[in-house]
């Protein structure tokens, strides 16, 4: 499965001359927001042991954000965490969270490279401008 699904393309389609950096802006917001949610969840795991309802509520928020930008692998780990909450498995939840954090880091790295590459390539058409 790819890291990003069709929803990411929908977000890309919203970028235009009026909002030329929209995708990168959304991605920055996403990583800040998801970082915060993961950190809140980790605190809740310690402070509220076996409080599966609370843990699930945090994860529902995170899943929503992942879904909105098309982060499909992260979304899958969110769903797996929620399944583990449903099964009341602390070990399962911890395992899913680790995988989620890994996918989070991988996606951040890949998107950073992607935006860097876009900047190097420059605006569309620049590469084809003949040298004078």
């Amino acid at each position: 499965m790819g890291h990003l699904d069709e929803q990411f393309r929908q977000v890309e389609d919203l970028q235009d001359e009026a909002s030329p950096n929209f995708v990168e802006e959304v991605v920055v917001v996403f990583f800040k927001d998801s970082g915060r949610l993961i950190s809140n969840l980790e605190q809740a795991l310690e402070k509220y042991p076996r409080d599966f309802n609370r843990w699930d509520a945090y994860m529902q928020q995170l899943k929503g954000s992942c879904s909105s930008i098309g982060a499909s692998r992260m979304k899958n780990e969110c769903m797996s965490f929620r399944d583990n909450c449903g099964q009341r498995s602390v070990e399962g939840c911890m395992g899913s969270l680790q995988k989620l954090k890994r996918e989070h880091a991988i996606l951040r790295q890949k998107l950073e490279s992607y935006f860097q590459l876009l900047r190097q390539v420059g605006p569309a058409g620049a590469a084809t401008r003949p040298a004078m």
Partner: protein
Amino acid sequence: MSSTNPPSATSHVALTRHPLEHGCGLSEWRSRCRGTDSTSLKNGLLQASAPSIPLCCLCPMSTTVQEPPHVLAVDDSLVDRVVISRLLRSSKYRVTTVDSGKKALEVLSLGHESVQLIITDYCMPEMTGYDLLKRVKESAELRGIPVVIMSSENSPARIRRCLDEGAEEFLIKPVRPSDVSRLCNRAIAAMPMR
């Protein structure tokens, strides 16, 4: 004006109401001009090019520019607020975003006449989108504002509840730009004139 005679473009200009602040009065046109083909009506009016008719951005019949519709978007998710606000702006709406039902009601109490549509997430802490919908529909001042609900849960019971309570539409998240702009256009066009 008789409904059997094809009206002249000028007489249609005189009859048309396009208050500056609203969406499209197309249904008003058709009910007044029964028996006339609406396409030739449109053409007739465009030819008349009356500068006095304000432009409704949803209606092809008017000629001057007016204020785009104002949408109030309610969502506790920051990512979703960013996406939805861009999406609505790219469809030429004016957007105000808030992160809670409580703030939405505050905005509405300050200036409900300016809000043409409310689009709200269902799952929010403290006041859900459903609670907000109820408050809007129970209020004499607010109940004319169409409300669209968004939710990541595809629950028929939830959808039914919202539609029964008066929601115009129910969108499943993640919302797609095409869905939102299509539904907003429809909800605003269907609104009674205010």
